[in-house]
């Protein structure tokens, strides 16, 4: 059997003396969609940042397709197939929409960049309309589309997505999730951090619940959605 695309082994991360992740282990198969849910401060964003190499890891291991990338610098991880859509989108506000998308292909040096740009514009027609506009002038939803499009320009196998629904109108959230469904259908593996547990569990076949920096529950999304603890704490039922 081929190794999992992403494997975290007993991952520990701390901010000073405060431990934010207390030994998290999980793995993702190629093509899988995994939702990471939990309360504020449970360590979801920390986990994503640590996987992306943006936070130093105290202990434990991050493996990408069997290769240990725990101590690898963040900027080396995109060429290896790992793209992050950061919390709060992290778009380059002064650059145009087009330039933002090109930044996503910064590490690439191939002939397919133009055709990939076209496919992002097809996926997000709103971005095509605003191609030459400064990204800072876009609405929140458009910025989220841009952040996703930019990440996809790096042709990732693994997409790390931090709170794509944050601060967006419900209709925009629906549209974003529809796009994510398409992206995953193309074979991209997804690790989704999301406050909106219901939507996340609908999109992803597997769910991990993080509580105080540790995995408290995990399993098949449909089964977990019937778990009374999950229903009470995260689905508001």
């Amino acid at each position: 059997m081929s190794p999992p695309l992403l494997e975290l082994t007993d991952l520990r991360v701390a901010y000073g003396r405060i431990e934010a992740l207390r030994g998290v282990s999980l793995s993702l198969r190629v093509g899988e969609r995994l939702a990471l849910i939990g309360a504020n401060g449970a360590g979801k964003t920390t986990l994503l940042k640590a996987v992306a190499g943006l936070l130093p890891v105290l202990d434990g291991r991050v493996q990408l397709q069997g290769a240990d990338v725990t101590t690898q610098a963040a900027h080396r991880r995109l060429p290896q197939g790992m793209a992050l859509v950061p919390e709060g989108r992290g778009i380059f506000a002064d650059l145009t929409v087009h330039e933002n998308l090109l930044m996503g292909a910064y590490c690439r040096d191939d002939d397919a960049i133009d055709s990939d740009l076209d496919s992002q514009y097809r996926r997000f027609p709103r971005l095509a309309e605003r191609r030459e506009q400064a990204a800072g002038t876009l609405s929140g939803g458009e910025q989220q589309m841009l952040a996703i499009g930019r990440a996809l320009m790096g042709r990732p196998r693994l997409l790390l997505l931090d709170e794509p629904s944050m601060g967006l109108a419900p209709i925009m959230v629906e549209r974003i999730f529809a796009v994510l469904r398409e992206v995953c259908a193309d074979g991209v593996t997804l690790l989704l951090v999301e406050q909106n547990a219901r939507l996340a569990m609908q999109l992803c076949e597997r769910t991990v619940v993080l509580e105080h920096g540790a995995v408290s529950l995990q399993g098949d999304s449909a089964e977990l959605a019937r778990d009374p603890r999950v229903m009470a704490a995260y689905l508001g039922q």
Partner: protein
Amino acid sequence: MPKRWQLVAVGVGLLALPWLVDAGLGVAWVRIVGFAALYAMLALGLNIVVGYAGLLDLGYIAFFAVGAYLYALTGSPQFGLHWPLWATLPLAALLAGGAGALLGAPTLRLRGDYLAIVTLGFGEIIRIFLNNLNTPVNVTNGPQGINQIDALSLGGFSLAQPFQLGGLTVPPAYLVCYLFTGLALLVALASLRLEDSRIGRAWQAIREDPLAAAACGIDVKRYKLLAFALGASFGGVAGALFAGVQGFVSPESFSLTESIMVLCMIVLGGMGHVWGVALGALILTALPEALRALGPLQKSLLGQVWVDPSDLRMLVFGLALIGMMLLRPHGLWPRSAQ
């Protein structure tokens, strides 16, 4: 207009510049234009650090000092050295660039106001260092500074002597003006090329969001260091030229006020915009000189000099800066809004 003719037009403009300025405003203003070009080089160097990469550097004048002292020590009776300009200029760029990397390396993790404080400290350290390096071994002559620095000279002929061309006599101030405006133009063109390169785009991304830049595969540390080193090397070249044209350097010329003045040129002109920064340098060099006229003006209008013109100058200067920030917060000539 085709590119070739643009170049010819710029060349003719630069050649005619000192003659026109002299005819209109007098030869003192030719010197001022030369200095404005020198400050434009300096400001364009800082613009790489602050404008492109978004790293607030309050100690930038230290690199100007490194270049100036390099020229002073290798071209004066201090050590009896008289190195030619073609050797000192690249060396000044190299040494200042090295100092830039030295400052950059320990500050890579700092941002915003924290970075500003550390760079401010660095600038002061260099100044105090120059001030005290006269004991136990006298290197810099301490607060007295270094005198009798060789005048700028290019390939055997000195820029401090009038130049005879046929029947035409070109005064030294003109020659300095030519050298400085020409070099400033080169620095401006280099900045434009940088801005529109992979390096420039990486800097912009880091300025906007360092985390997202790293996630896009940009080596944030490396590009920050590069910005510090390149910006500093421009400052070093400007410093060497400054020493050559002044004939005298002392630590006093490299105080925090000077760093802030260079930063003002960028902010006033339009941060990140090459021509805006050049305009800012021109205005902030020329304005204090133009305001000297406030003394004679008082005398003719009020019969007596009521307020010392040098005090009034700073007042008008300060008011102009405040007014500017209120009316045009992005600078006089910002990058075209998208």
